[in-house]
């Protein structure tokens, strides 16, 4: 390429540094292979700016030429140049593996170390065997060490057989071998690691245990169990963690009674290990092995955790406590002065819903601070026990906190029953909107003639918020029972009310045909939101007679109303709308065209298909892609013989 020639000339021309940098950048940008030797030469430049520009260009160009040009620099006497060469080869080396593999037989120890290192970054399966051979045969310990590290980095199963054999090497190499095996997780390594465990120093043993834990293979459990009694405390804690990691709680229940007891005892010790990961595993394990003492200790640990910073650990602790079930320790904590343990217990109680804990929560409720009260109310609401009704009625009568009140309303609404309607209705006058909303939902859930009448009366009131609530409730209670009110609401002066009135049809879609004239009128509402709601509704309900209305919405002034109409027509397979959709799909508004293309793909048929073929030539790539998908969709559905 002419350009590249010029670039090479500029690289070698001895211009000022910014010219050379620009040339290097151009070389990279244009992928100039022929600039590679010149660029490699510049890596040794004394000017750091030039050096760096050459470095970046070489990485972008890559290829065999780059690898070959950079390898000789590994032998440079200057460390920065060597490091730079290494770094470039890590990124580009895979493009010429044989050259790198050849270096593994170099006479120079350092070069063999470098090559082992670089091969680890190539991601290539062809690097495994040469690295494996180096691991087992190289006379230099640092080469073997680096080969193991690199095999781990590659993370390929084929490496396991070399690494397993290398477990007998000296300790320095063992470290990297074990780490690599943990990354590779091959089943064949379990036995090898287990064997090595018996012959190892404490340090290596703990690495092996950790590796076995991470590998998660059940075959290791029996062997680890056997090791428990003889191990030092630190090692034993690690073994506990590994066992929990492998078995994952549940299968701990399958251990024999005696084994479980012994293990539970060790887990309690592990709970005090300084490593948080060990503590966490101990908590999880205790969640399945259980016991009064375990419950107390896990609770103590959990109470010391910070809900924000240690969120995940806290979840773990609560899981464990719930697993151990209701205990005396939990009840005592509820009565105690400390807020944290009590909060933890409430979290556990909402999971267990056991009678003693629920009763305890109620009995301490009024004496605790607002935050805990909110949580207790929540927990009791989740448990939804009928016998807590008097408690919640008292809350509704006495409490002033919005959040607590909402919870109580939710409980009562779900429970229902005689005589609560009056109470709930009263809360529609509460000053907080969210409390009103909760009361309204509760009223709808409870239902009944009494409430029904009240909402009807409420709709006649002046206050728009009251009318809005009434319409919402009547819609939920059934349009059929409130025909006149809903009809009036569709014409209300407040747009939100018109919108809510429309939405009241969405739940059941019944009798929509009969309402169509009134609904159709809303297609010309002055408010975009209301028009959108109509389209939403018509798209969501079934019925051939709704389709012409949707087509009408295609003429809306607002793009998104039209988008929703297009979508709805597509979803409903409206064949009659195809001509209009074709028009839109080939029109100038790309957003609408995209949606129309999708719709045509969904509807299918000859006309749609032909139109889509035309869109395949569209300029906009996004539109082209959409057309391809739509065409494929029609072809898949098999209706079109080509």
């Amino acid at each position, binding site marked *: 390429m002419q350009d590249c020639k010029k670039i090479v000339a500029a690289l070698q021309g001895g211009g000022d540094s910014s010219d050379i940098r620009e040339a290097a950048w151009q070389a990279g940008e244009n992928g100039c292979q022929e600039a590679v030797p010149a660029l490699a030469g510049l890596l040794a430049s004394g000017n750091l*700016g030039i050096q760096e520009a050459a470095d970046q260009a070489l990485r972008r160009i890559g290829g065999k030429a780059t690898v070959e040009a950079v390898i000789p620099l590994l032998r440079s006497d200057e460390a*920065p140049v060597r490091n730079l060469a290494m770094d470039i080869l890590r990124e580009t080396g895979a493009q010429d593996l044989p050259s790198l593999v050849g270096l593994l037989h170099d006479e120079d120890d350092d070069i063999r170390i470098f090559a082992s290192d670089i091969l680890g970054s190539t991601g290539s399966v062809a690097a495994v065997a040469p690295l494996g051979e180096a691991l087992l045969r190289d006379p230099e310990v640092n080469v073997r060490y680096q080969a193991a590290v690199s095999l781990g980095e590659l993370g390929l199963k084929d490496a396991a057989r070399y690494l397993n054999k290398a477990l007998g090497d000296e300790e320095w190499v063992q470290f990297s071998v074990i780490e690599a095996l943990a990354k590779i997780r091959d089943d064949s390594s379990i036995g090898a690691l287990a064997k090595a465990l018996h012959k190892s120093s404490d340090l290596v043993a703990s690495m092996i245990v950790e590796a076995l834990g991470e590998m998660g293979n059940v075959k290791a459990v029996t062997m680890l169990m056997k090791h428990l009694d003889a191990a030092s405390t630190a090692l034993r804690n690690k073994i506990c963690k590994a066992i929990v990691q492998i078995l994952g709680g549940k299968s701990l229940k399958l251990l024999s009674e005696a084994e479980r007891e012994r293990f539970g005892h060790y887990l309690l010790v592990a709970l005090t290990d300084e490593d948080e990961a060990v503590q966490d595993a101990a908590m999880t394990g205790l969640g399945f092995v259980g016991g009064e003492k375990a419950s107390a200790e896990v609770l103590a640990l959990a109470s010391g955790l910070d809900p924000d910073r240690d969120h995940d650990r806290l979840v773990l602790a609560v899981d464990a406590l719930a697993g151990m079930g209701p205990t005396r320790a939990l009840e005592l904590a509820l009565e105690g002065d400390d807020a944290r343990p009590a909060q933890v217990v409430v979290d556990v109680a909402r999971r267990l819903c056991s009678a003693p804990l629920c009763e305890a929560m109620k009995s301490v409720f009024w004496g605790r601070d607002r935050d805990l009260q909110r949580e207790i109310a929540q927990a009791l609401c989740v448990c939804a026990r009928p016998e807590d009704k008097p408690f919640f009625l008292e809350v509704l009568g006495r409490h002033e906190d919005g959040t607590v009140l909402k919870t109580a309303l939710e409980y009562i609404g779900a429970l229902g029953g005689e005589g609560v309607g009056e109470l709930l209705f009263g809360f529609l006058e509460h000053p907080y909107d969210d409390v009103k909303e909760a009361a309204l939902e509760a009223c709808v859930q409870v239902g009944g003639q009494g409430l029904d009448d009240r909402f009807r009366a409420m709709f006649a009131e002046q206050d728009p918020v009251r009318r809005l*609530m009434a319409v919402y409730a009547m819609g939920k209670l059934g349009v059929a029972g409130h025909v006149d009110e809903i009809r009036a609401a569709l014409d209300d002066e407040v747009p939100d009310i018109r*919108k809510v009135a429309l*939405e009241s049809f969405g739940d059941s879609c019944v009798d929509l045909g009969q309402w169509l004239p009134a609904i159709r009128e809303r297609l010309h509402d002055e408010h975009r939101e209301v028009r*959108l*709601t109509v389209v939403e509704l018509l798209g969501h309900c079934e019925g051939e007679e709704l389709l012409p209305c949707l087509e009408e919405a295609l003429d809306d002034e607002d793009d*998104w109303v039209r988008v929703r109409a297009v979508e709805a027509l597509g979803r409903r397979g409206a064949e009659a709308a195809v001509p209009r959709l074709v028009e839109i799909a080939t029109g100038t508004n790309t*957003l609408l065209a*995209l949606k129309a293309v999708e719709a045509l793909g969904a509807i299918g048929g000859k006309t749609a298909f032909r139109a889509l073929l035309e869109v395949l030539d569209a300029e906009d790539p996004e539109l082209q892609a959409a057309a391809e998908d739509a065409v494929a969709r029609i072809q898949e559905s098999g209706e079109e013989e080509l």
Partner: protein
Amino acid sequence: MASLFTKTISLKKEFTIEPEEFAQLRDFIYAQSGIYIADNRKYLLENRLRNRLKQLNLKSFGEYYYYLQYDAGRKQELNRLFEVVTTNETSFFRNPPQLKVFQDHVLREVVEAQRKAGDRRIRIWSAGCSTGEEPYTMAIQLCEVLGAELPGWNVRITANDLSEGVLASARRGVYTEYALRTTPPEMIRKYFVQTDGNYAVREDLKKLISFGQINLSDRMQLKRVERSHIVFCRNVIIYFDDEMKKRVISSFYDNLLPGGYLLIGHSESLHNISRAFKPTHYPGAIIYRKEE
């Protein structure tokens, strides 16, 4: 009043971003600004955009992606999106130890060198200037160093940012007390005018700075910036992936005059990004210098 009904049909479901949608948006944002949203910031994008989607009445993040490309309001929306994915956090005299080194060493050396060369020009570039606190701080420090000599010097601070919104505030130059929380009181007295509870930057400081929009991912745009003695780019490249960091830093290198200085944020580093600069360690700051 509609707030009463958070659960109407159209708003019923909470948006979540699907993996393909996230990839689409991420690539789009990257192509537009060089800002790379890492996977672990996905939820952030989701949370910050969710309400926007509701306001626009869109049904999914995929639709938002369409909106950004095809809607009549896409230009403005892109600017909004930039506001969402960037953090404009800044203040006057942010990171005082670094600025002390800047004033006592970097500025004085540059001034001395220029004086010797008989060239009374000083050019500083604040890339990613946000609402202007950083370039105004530079201007104050220059006034401190040059003192009464200032009128005899030809000084220009070029201050750029991606976001038009922050540039508008920067040009206004009116700040709350909070923006001045690490500013020495005597500096406040000297360089600000109090106006009903707020602080306005003195007009003569404003004249030293020219604000303008720039997209750091646009190499050609960066090439057009006048060459500088000093480049400030603090707390900006954190949003970029390594590839983009390399390109931006390389452009700063090209922009700097020989012997020029680069200052980056204290939590940022050029490690694995560039070796071209010579780092000098001072108490509380590393200053990068281009060779003479």
